[in-house]
Structures are given as C-alpha cells and as structure tokens.
C-alpha cells in the first residue's frame, strides 16, 4: 500500500491529493468533502489560491520554481477536465491518463513527502496492524518480539516484564544522545478484538481510503506507536528516553497496575508524553498540557516552562494551516475502575503532554477504526519540537 496514482477509473487518488493539498495550502477544513476537479481548478488557479500555493511551498521549504506557472497549471487542469467531461458526453478519454499524471507530477509530487508518511512508515504500520494483539489474539508474543527488536536496534536497553498468562510490559531506556533532559513516553501494543464481520475492510490489513488509514488499533495505539518508533529511529540527537509499552490496556491493565508503581517510582522526567492525542474534525489540534498538582490541587494549568513548548507546537500546526487549543486535562480513555496506570503514576510537579494523530472520526474500539493520514507528518515534526524544548528547558533547570 502506498500513496500513489492509479489508472483505475474508480481511483480517487488525484482528487484526494488535491483536496489534501488545498486543506494545507488554503486552510480548507480537514473534514471538507473531496474537491471536485472543477473546484480544485478554481482554488488553485485563482490569483489568491495560486499565491497561497506558493506561500505553502515556502513554508515547507519547497523551491517554488519547481511548481508550474499559474497559466501552465490552468492548462493542466483544463486538459484533465476535458478528458473527464468527454468521457461523460461521448465516451472519449485520455487512454494514457497523461492529464492525470501531469497534474499529479506538477502539483502533488513536490508536496507529497512533506504531507504524507513515507513508505517505510506505512510498512511499519501495516506490519503492526497485521498482528492480532487482542487478548484472545495469537500474535502478542510476535508483536513483543518485534518491538523488542526495533527498540534494541535503536540502542534502547529493554527490560521485558512477564508473568504467566499476562501480556509482557516493555520497559525501555536509552541514554541521552546529544541533548539534555529526559522524556518518558507511554504506549500500548494491544488492541480490542478485531471483528471482521463488522468492518468494511480487513481489520488486520492497513487500508488507505479517502486520505485515511484504516486498521484495528491504528488509532489506539499502534499508529502513534509506529510513528514514534520510526521518527525517533531517524533522529540523530535525542534527550534521555524512557519508553514504557504495555499489552493489556484494553482489559483494564492489570499487569501494568501491578508493575508501573515500582517501574516509575522516583523517575524524574522533563516531560511525560501520553500515548497519543487528538485533532478536531476540522483540524484544530487539542494540546492537552498540564502540571500534576498535589492531591488537593489536582490538574494544574501549564506552567511558565510549558508555554514556550505550546507556542512551538502551535507554530508547527500553523504550517498545516490548522489552529490549536490548550486543555489542562488528561487524555480521555475508556477508564476502567483503576484508571490509567500511566497517569496514576505521574508524580507531583510532572509536566504532561498529549499530542497525536487521532480525530473524532477515529472510532476507537469500533469497526472501521481509522486515523487521518495528514496528522502523521505533523506529529513527526512535533516530536522533534518536543525534543528541542526538552533540551532547552533541561539546560535552564
């Protein structure tokens, strides 16, 4: 699976790509309908639309010279519109799809790698999705072994906590690589039970449709886990990292509740990063940021140190033309009686952040669970921003 152009008539690849780019360049709501080619023509070839396209290229450090002149772009759109209209009116078309390909290459290729995940990350996500890691699934150990291999390849030292009949916990640590500070990341590799009969696609097969990625557990939590694994693997510098990944989140985390208190006792971190986070349907990012108060205080708003991070994350979101809002709370989860074992262990004074790749349409625990594909690159950028902030803050503290 990849984001590529296809000849097959039912394919909406070009239209999806033009819609995604228009959302990024012109700030169309992220839940807007797919643009028709006529609408895309109007957006991209109007004076204002074309200027926004050029400015977007600059924001993403794409040489505007690589984009076609407005007049050329107009011709490319008109050629493809002619092909589509001719098909409707007298069953004629461009059999070589040259118009479709020309638009794809001229307009989308320069932005593609800036706005969508690369093939390696998609493969990682597809691999994780294919493993049935529900409590009754048979792939828990395979997944644990694979995660172990990935983490070790990234120079983490990993402690695997096991107990008969319980899904292992991975407690991974890595010393700083050229940056100060310490980040604790949380995640889980288990999912709810896939129910293929209730899905439109195979829940264990990562499927791309309408700019969204579908698969069991993709929003909770395999997608974010895969993005973070691949992003951190590609970073030359990083603060000290502690990564705790459990496998019973969907069945009330009994082993985690037993183990986390001792694992996380006394851990001092510059930031504690939640398993994922959300965007609103139209794109606005929810930045869940708080400081853990004492028992009487509860959740406290971000302190002075956290605000520069929030500002930087907001600037990242602005690159994608989406806004943000700050909420001082933890990520909503399907809490069981004992609550989230990670959040329960946050020490007083801990700085907590939840950012991620989901939106309200993700449908966590439901059939057709999905994530919007556009959030992935933003999350990758924001992870780098988090690392830089940790380095700065830790130096000051």
């Amino acid at each position: 699976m990849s984001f590529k152009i296809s000849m097959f008539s039912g394919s909406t690849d070009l239209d999806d790509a033009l819609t995604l780019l228009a959302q990024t360049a012109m700030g169309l709501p992220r839940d807007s309908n797919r643009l028709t080619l006529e609408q895309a023509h109007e957006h991209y070839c109007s004076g204002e639309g074309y200027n926004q396209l050029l400015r977007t290229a600059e924001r993403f450090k794409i040489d505007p010279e690589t984009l076609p002149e407005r007049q050329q772009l107009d011709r490319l759109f008109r050629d493809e519109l002619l092909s589509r209209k001719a098909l409707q009116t007298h069953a004629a078309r461009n059999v070589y799809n040259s118009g479709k390909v020309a638009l794809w290459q001229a307009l989308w290729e320069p932005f593609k790698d800036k706005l969508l995940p690369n093939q390696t990350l998609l493969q990682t996500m597809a691999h994780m999705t294919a493993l049935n890691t529900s409590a009754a699934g048979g792939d828990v150990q395979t997944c644990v072994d694979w995660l172990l291999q990935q983490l070790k390849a990234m120079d983490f030292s990993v402690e695997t906590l096991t107990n008969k009949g319980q899904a292992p916990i991975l407690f991974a640590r890595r010393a700083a690589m050229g940056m100060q500070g310490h980040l604790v990341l949380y995640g889980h590799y288990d999912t709810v039970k896939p129910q293929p009969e209730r899905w439109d696609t195979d829940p264990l097969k990562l499927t791309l449709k309408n700019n969204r990625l579908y698969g069991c557990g993709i929003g909770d939590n395999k997608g974010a886990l895969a993005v973070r694994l691949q992003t951190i693997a590609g970073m030359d510098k990083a603060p000290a990292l502690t990564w705790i990944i459990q496998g019973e989140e969907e069945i009330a985390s009994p082993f985690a509740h037993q183990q986390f208190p001792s694992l996380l006792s006394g851990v001092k971190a510059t930031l504690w990063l939640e398993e994922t986070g959300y965007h609103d349907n139209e794109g606005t990012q929810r930045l869940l940021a708080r400081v853990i108060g004492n028992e009487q205080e509860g959740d406290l708003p971000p302190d002075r140190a956290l605000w520069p991070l929030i500002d930087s994350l907001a600037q990242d979101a602005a690159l994608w033309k989406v806004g943000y809002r700050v909420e001082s709370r933890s990520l909503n989860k399907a809490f069981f009686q004992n609550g989230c074992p990670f959040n329960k262990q946050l020490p007083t004074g801990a700085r907590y952040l939840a950012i991620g790749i989901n939106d309200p349409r993700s449908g966590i625990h439901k059939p057709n669970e999905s994530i919007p594909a556009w959030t992935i690159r933003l999350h990758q950028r924001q992870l780098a921003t988090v690392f830089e902030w940790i380095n700065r803050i830790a130096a000051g503290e």
Partner: protein
Amino acid sequence: MQLSQKQIEHFHQESYLAVGPLVDDSKRQQLTDTFSDLQRQWAQEQGESLEDYCRVLSQWTNLWKQHPLFAAQIHHPDITAIARQLLGVPQIQLFHDHLISKPPRHSKAVPWHQDYAFWPVDKPTALSAWLALDEVTEESGCLEFLPGAHLEGEQAPQDFLGSDKDWGERRAEVRKVPVPAGWVIFHSCLSWHTTAPNQTDKDRRAFICIYMDANCRWKSSHSDWHPTNAQVSVAPWERFNTDEFPLIQGVNH
C-alpha cells in the same frame, strides 16, 4: 471467409493472427474521414480547439453508437466470420468497440497487459479485432506480443501508471507486428501485448472491436470499475443485454 487450419493454430499458439487486407482503401478512407468529422464536432461541442481536443483525447468507445458507418463496421462479414472461427463459437456479441489514436508527438506507450483482466466478463472467450486505419510500423507504435504467454492464464490487471512488467530473458521472444492499413490483427483477450509511442509525423489510428462468445455472462466482480458496467441492464451472471452489446449475426443466420 474461411481461415486455414494453420492460421487458427497460429492464433491459439501465439495469441494473435494478422490477416489482410480485410478493409479496402475506400472504406478505410470513409472511416477515417468520418472519424475526423466527429472529432471536429466533439471539439466544437466541448468548446476546445481541434488541436487541443486531439492532443488530450486518445480513445473513443462505442463509435457504433455515434455513426452508421461504424455501426455497419462492427458487423463486417469477414472480420466477424474470422472472430467466430478463432473463438470456436457459433455466435458472437460485441463487448465494445474503441478507436485508439496515437497522434504524432502526443502519444505514450501502453504498458504490457492482458485485456481480459480489465473486463467484467465471466470467461476469457473473447478477442480483439484490431483494424489498422493507417499503416502501422514499428516506429509508429505497432502491437507487440509475447507469443505463448497467454497460455499461462489470467494474471492480475496491470495498472498502466505503475506497471513494471519485465519479461527478463523472455524479452527476446517479443514479436513486433507492423501491418499495412486495412489489415486486422486478431488477438486473444489473454494475449500479453504492448504498444510504443508514435515517433513518426503520421497518424496512427486503429479501430478495435472486442467480440466475445454470445454465451459470456456479466460478472461485475471481475472488474467493478469498468465503465461498461454502466451499460449493463441485466442481473449478474446473465447474458449481456443486446441493446448495448449487439449480437453479431453470421452470414448463415
């Protein structure tokens, strides 16, 4: 027209057979002139210059519905008699016709593919009768076949925009089939074929009729995206409706 046993065997072994001339120059000229008139008409209707229209569009489907000359052409007695003999069936039906143009300077290669993989038809008892409306040379993009590859059966449909079909050492077996104008190349729907771009300054047009056994049934699941599905008014697994998929009467019928 009766084919020899040797010709029929060639078709089955090699996946294609070139026969000609089957259409004389006068009829061929009428067909190309009529098509040029239609192009002018369509360009005007689309509000495009003829030059832009011809630069952008390259395939016209079901011309038999557009002009009586093409409606008669799909029933050409010799071509349809040969189609029946090669398919080994008493009655055939038109799946669709199409004219493909590779104008000078504005054409591309069509990658290696099998036609049947793209069709919503239940069995591969079908062939294309590829009538050269212009002389077709290696330089202008003649049909090329890999003889015998059709005997390996149906493969997954090739995506022309991402095709990477490579025959490796079998490339040496590829047969280029240039033909004079008025000749017809009959090729199996399972034949592996390709065409190169037209690198000459002359037109390269072919009028292609796809004939299937009249007992073929509509199987939309075999190709649910194919535009012809929209013309089907029967239920899945029934014979195609004859208003949109005309039965071709034989001389004895």
